[in-house]
């Protein structure tokens, strides 16, 4: 088998058996990036020198018998995670000149595991977007069809793994930003339970929703990556103190006895018929593997996008107040006074969508509107969360489509933000509730990949990995490459 299609598990075996060195693997992927990235635009920064230096260190660790399961394996980091001494742009002109002075906790954890950081991936500016068209560095192309979007906001990471430019990558998911691009690029991605992965050094968008997670070719690989990423961090007071299990421990459990629900609201109007067929076939496959399938209801599904577009912009307007042209990042030329410095720095440094969301959030939080918008949205958030808890009384997992359509055309929705927002209709509720959600390749519509979303109750990631792994043992959708 060619190197680029090897999973982390396979690469790890080859590295341990010294069939190949980390330097060789890293150079192989750097060459692939050099060859294929110009067409895809998946990377903002490629770290040729530091990656090879890290690979040399990893080879020493392996030689001395001090290697962990993923030592020496390259990964790409979404450009939202701070990397000490390496540009961390968050896809924005505002941070185009920002060399992070410290590492995110996730970065530190991967370093400690001996993994090799090969580059920083392209993304929608400040993780706001569903198509990767909001990047200051230009859109990422979908590896399956270069005229289409890869999904967003973690589009660079998803495209890089799908095109086999790297065997693993990180992402963040505030309303679907791991699951939707993974689905549109035919790879596996998981958004863990809110608070499972430290947000320290992960540039904030909406703090009660943001959560980091991994992208990989398989569920088993994603489990290995989450083993490294998860855990309480005293630098992030919202990271939960809760034991981290070995996420690979339950992969091989049969699905017999598992009850899986599908929400009738996820198959209502808005879902493309061809996508519905693929998802129904995937559900039938899970049934064949021994799971009991049951229809459930998530009656407030239609309110998730409206509530999200109050809560996320409100939190974003507060979080992004820090970009003031004083301490770091972009500053406008020749400010007349302090007010002019703030207004023009922010007007020039932020892209259109960022300004749109900050204005929506400021409006929703402004005097006289707070109860009608922000408080109302928080009440609806409770209703949506309650719907999931009611469902989990009778099912172990919920499955359905990750996105209502396959990847759409570049430019198709750029002038219509509301239509863009609705492409996250099936993923957003999971963030509002703070639940773990995963997507796995489930089939194709007109040669474009379709993802199956799996949702579990709080801290039940092991069950997601188990069901996803069993599905991937019985199917080969995840092995298809562009």
């Amino acid at each position, binding site marked *: 088998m060619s190197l680029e299609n090897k999973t982390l598990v396979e690469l790890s075996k080859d590295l341990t058996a010294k069939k190949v060195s980390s330097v060789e693997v890293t150079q192989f992927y750097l060459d692939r990036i050099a060859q294929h990235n110009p067409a895809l635009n998946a990377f903002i920064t490629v770290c040729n020198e530091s990656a090879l230096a890290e690979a040399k260190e990893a080879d020493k660790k392996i030689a001395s018998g001090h290697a962990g399961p993923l030592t020496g394996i390259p990964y790409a980091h979404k450009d939202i995670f701070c990397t000490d001494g390496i540009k961390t742009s968050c896809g924005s002109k505002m941070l185009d000149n920002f060399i992070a002075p410290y590492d995110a906790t996730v970065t530190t954890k991967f370093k400690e595991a001996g993994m090799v950081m090969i580059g920083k991936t392209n993304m929608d500016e400040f993780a706001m977007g569903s198509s990767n068209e909001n990047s200051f560095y230009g859109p990422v192309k979908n590896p399956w069809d270069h005229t289409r979007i890869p999904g967003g906001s973690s589009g660079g990471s998803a495209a890089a793994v799908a095109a086999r430019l790297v065997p693993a990558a990180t992402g963040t998911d505030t309303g679907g930003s791991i699951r939707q691009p993974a689905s549109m690029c035919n790879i596996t991605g998981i958004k863990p339970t809110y608070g499972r992965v430290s947000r320290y050094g992960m540039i904030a968008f909406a703090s009660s929703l943001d959560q980091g997670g991994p992208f990989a070719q398989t569920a088993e690989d994603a489990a290995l990556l989450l083993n490294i990423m998860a855990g309480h961090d005293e630098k992030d*007071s919202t990271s939960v103190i809760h034991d981290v299990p070995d996420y690979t421990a339950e992969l091989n459990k049969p699905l017999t006895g598992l009850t899986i629900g599908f929400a009738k609201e996820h198959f209502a109007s808005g879902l493309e018929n061809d996508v519905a067929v693929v998802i129904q076939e995937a559900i039938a496959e899970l049934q064949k593997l021994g799971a009991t399938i049951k229809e459930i209801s998530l009656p407030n599904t239609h309110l998730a996008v*409206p509530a999200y577009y109050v809560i996320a912009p409100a939190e974003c307007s507060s979080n992004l107040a820090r970009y003031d042209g004083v*301490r770091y990042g972009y500053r406008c030329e020749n400010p*007349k006074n302090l007010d002019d410095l703030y207004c023009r720095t922010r007007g020039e440094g932020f892209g259109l969508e960022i300004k*749109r969301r900050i*204005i*929506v959030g*400021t*409006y929703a939080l402004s005097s006289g509107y707070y109860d009608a918008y922000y408080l109302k949205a928080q*009440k609806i958030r409770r209703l949506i969360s309650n719907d999931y808890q009611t469902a989990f009384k009778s099912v172990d997992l919920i499955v359905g489509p990750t996105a209502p359509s396959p990847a759409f055309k570049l430019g198709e929705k750029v002038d219509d933000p509301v239509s863009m927002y609705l492409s996250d209709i099936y993923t957003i509720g999971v963030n509002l509730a703070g639940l773990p959600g995963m997507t796995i390749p489930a089939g194709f519509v007109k040669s474009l990949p379709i993802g199956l979303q799996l949702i579990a109750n709080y801290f039940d990631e092991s069950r997601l990995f188990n069901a996803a792994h069993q599905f991937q043992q019985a199917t080969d959708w995840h092995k298809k490459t562009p």
Partner: protein
Amino acid sequence: MALSETDVKKVAHLARIALSPEELPSHIKNLSKIIDLVEQMNTVDTTGIEPMAHPQDITQPLRDDIVTETNQREKMQRCAPLTEAGLYLVPKVIEDRSNEASEF
């Protein structure tokens, strides 16, 4: 609900964002559409529902009140647009006080 040009300009200034004349029409149109989307929330009665600010019902962990950070001022200021003698430089603010106060 449609937002007027005055509304958009006022909120943009509250957020300290200068909008160019070219981008203003697109913002007015799209912000009104977003507010229409958001107002679909009004189709459901939420009387008596407790607002949910956060997904986890957890209390904040506490730690001892001791210094954990070392002084890294030089490193932290390396990415600043303008500094002098360890201070961040901004335009003079004293003269603008009366002007600033009227905007809040």
